[in-house]
């Protein structure tokens, strides 16, 4: 709703819920999307919501991922491996199955095919290719979904429709589950030097002849600056209190917050607004004096690009490490699918583990691990 609004009537900006510059000057905001009617009104078909637990009762949303959240292959693969190793445990505990995720995903994608396409829409998955670090996940998912895994060079656009080059000649593609970032999907619309995209793809999309999942420009809803406004945004659109709370966050763009943050740097976690993957962040309690001073200088230079949060007492989970079984911090990322017929979620999620003792950084790019996650029938 928020995305439809900022690319449409812009009521929440006009009502002063979100500051204008955070929307219009957000690098992930795509002016090209303004006024584009996305098929079935769905922007974020696949969302990964990072959730942490800080005490017995409280779960917080740590972060939203509305661009191209990854990790679902670890969810499925982890279950498969654990099931092989400890099959008896699964029988004894009635663990809800997650292996229908690829089916749910493909039916979600089919449900959002542009209106007017056949009863049997063609879904394809667009990958940057085998040099991408997530290529394994792309091929794994495409395989399980039974859809073609395509690269930019396998597609072309004619008369504002997308076709794939096949052994039987061109075949029309209706839904593209793309794992290529906005910047690279179409050299004519976005970065001209992109070799990964399909020239004219955005034109076909704007013309309503192909569905892109997720939509273009969804990043405008998941960066860490917008995150701080999420509770207000939810209240504005739904007139309800959000069930899952946000982590209390200081916006460094606000002078009052900034001075608090600068005074309390050693206790806080400071993150770049547009960062991801655990890069460019400061974990106060675990940083040296020099690192903190270095960050202080960066904060002062461009406060609007940072937010700060209290260092949370993330819950831990017993983990098997070199020294034996020991507690390690975890967070949980369930995957939420949104199609034309509502939302679906498989009973499970990706549990990410910070493998280093005491570490709070769970990102796989920083050496994080994963765990199989059970939803148990009691």
């Amino acid at each position, binding site marked *: 709703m928020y995305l439809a609004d900022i690319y449409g009537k812009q009521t929440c900006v006009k009502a002063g819920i979100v500051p204008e510059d955070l929307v219009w000057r957000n690098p992930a905001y795509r002016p090209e999307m303004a006024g584009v009617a996305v098929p079935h009104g769905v922007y974020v078909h696949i969302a990964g919501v990072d959730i942490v637990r800080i005490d017995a009762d409280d779960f917080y949303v740590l972060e939203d991922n509305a661009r191209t959240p990854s990790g679902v292959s670890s969810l499925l693969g982890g279950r498969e491996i654990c099931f092989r190793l400890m099959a008896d445990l699964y029988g004894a505990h009635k663990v809800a199955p997650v292996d229908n995720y690829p089916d749910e995903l493909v039916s979600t994608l089919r449900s959002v095919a542009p209106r007017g396409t056949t009863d049997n829409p063609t879904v394809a998955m667009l990958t940057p*290719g085998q040099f991408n670090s997530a290529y394994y996940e792309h091929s794994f998912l*495409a*395989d399980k979904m039974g859809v*073609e*895994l*395509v690269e930019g060079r396998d597609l072309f656009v004619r008369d504002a429709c997308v076709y794939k*080059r*096949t*052994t*039987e000649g061109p075949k029309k593609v209706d839904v593209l589950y793309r794992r290529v970032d906005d910047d690279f999907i179409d050299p004519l619309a976005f970065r001209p030097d992109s070799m990964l995209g399909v020239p004219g793809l955005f034109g076909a999309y704007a013309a309503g002849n192909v569905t892109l999942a997720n939509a273009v420009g969804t990043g405008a809803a998941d960066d860490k600056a917008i995150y701080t406004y999420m509770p207000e945004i939810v209240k504005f659109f739904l007139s309800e209190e959000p069930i899952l709370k946000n982590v209390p966050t200081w916006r460094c763009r606000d002078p009052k917050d900034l001075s608090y943050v600068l005074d309390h740097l050693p206790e806080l976690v400071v993150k770049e607004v547009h960062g991801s993957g655990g890069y460019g962040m400061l974990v106060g309690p675990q940083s040296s004096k020099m690192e903190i001073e270095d960050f202080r200088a960066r904060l002062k230079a461009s406060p609007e690009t940072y937010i700060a949060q209290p260092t949370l007492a993330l819950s831990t989970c017993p983990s098997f490490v070199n020294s034996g079984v020991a507690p390690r911090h975890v967070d949980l990322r369930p995957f939420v699918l949104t199609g034309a017929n509502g939302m679906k979620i498989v009973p499970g999620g990706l549990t990410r583990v910070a493998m280093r003792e005491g570490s709070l950084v769970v990102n796989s790019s920083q050496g994080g691990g994963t765990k199989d996650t059970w939803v148990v029938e009691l």
Partner: protein
Amino acid sequence: MLSRTADNLFWLSRYVERADYLARILETTSRLSVLPAAYAGDSNEWTRALATAGCLNAFLAIYEKPTAETVTEFLAFSEQNPSSIRRCLETARFNARAVRTALTQETWETINGAWLDLQKMDERDMVTNRISRFTEWVKDVALRIDGSGYRTMLRNDAYWFLRLGFFTERADNTARILDVKYHILLPESSAVGGGLDYSQWTAILRSVNALTAYRWVYRESLKPWLIADLLILNEELPRSLASCYKNIVECLDSLAGAYGRQGKAQRQARTIRTSFENSVIDQVFQTGLHEFLTSFIADNNRVGAAIIEQYL
């Protein structure tokens, strides 16, 4: 299916087949090279191995003299030789990875496993001491890739493109090995007779895995024209030209059936197959074995090109 996928599958199997063939050449050559000169002849067996592999000039651009060590290194491991066994398996794995979804898990794991094994090998040690173990390993990898595809893949276009690659490359390899050694198969040269030719004939049969097959088919001692008959016209031998074309025609027909359309590739392949069916080996020798093989290699290339043009 995507043209790129078909292209990758076709070349994936061609490279696997080529690696297998190179392993056989290395094996037979090292066997010949240790024979006394009276049996092996005075010409350099290692030079001939390079000619059979079709890369003598590429070799001479890098090395001075073909010796057991340099040729083995060049054919088995060299990074500078785009068709060394190592590079073949690497390219096959690269192609397989690009079309991971078109392969079954079993086939992919076989290819990837071979590639991982290759990373761990001590090349120096292999070249000097244990080349036979290496060639055994390569042949085993090819068997497992072929077999896992045969046992696990759906019988659809992906499977047929994979098969087409195997048979197109195999036909090319068999024709080449015959062509490099055609002079010792000519009837008049058998007058030279003796142990020398016998070991050369055995080597040809070994390199296409047909020494035992020969005895079962003809039940007599090695005769050069029968060897040619077996390798060219006998449909029962999996590496004969006739058998390769029987299979190529079948794969192309399956594709045409699935896609509902025939094309140039089907017509050309069928013409070649018919010509094998109507030939006897005496005729082949009358036209000239070398001329026959040269024109076959060209025809086979044309079929490959027609497949690429039509589908890839």
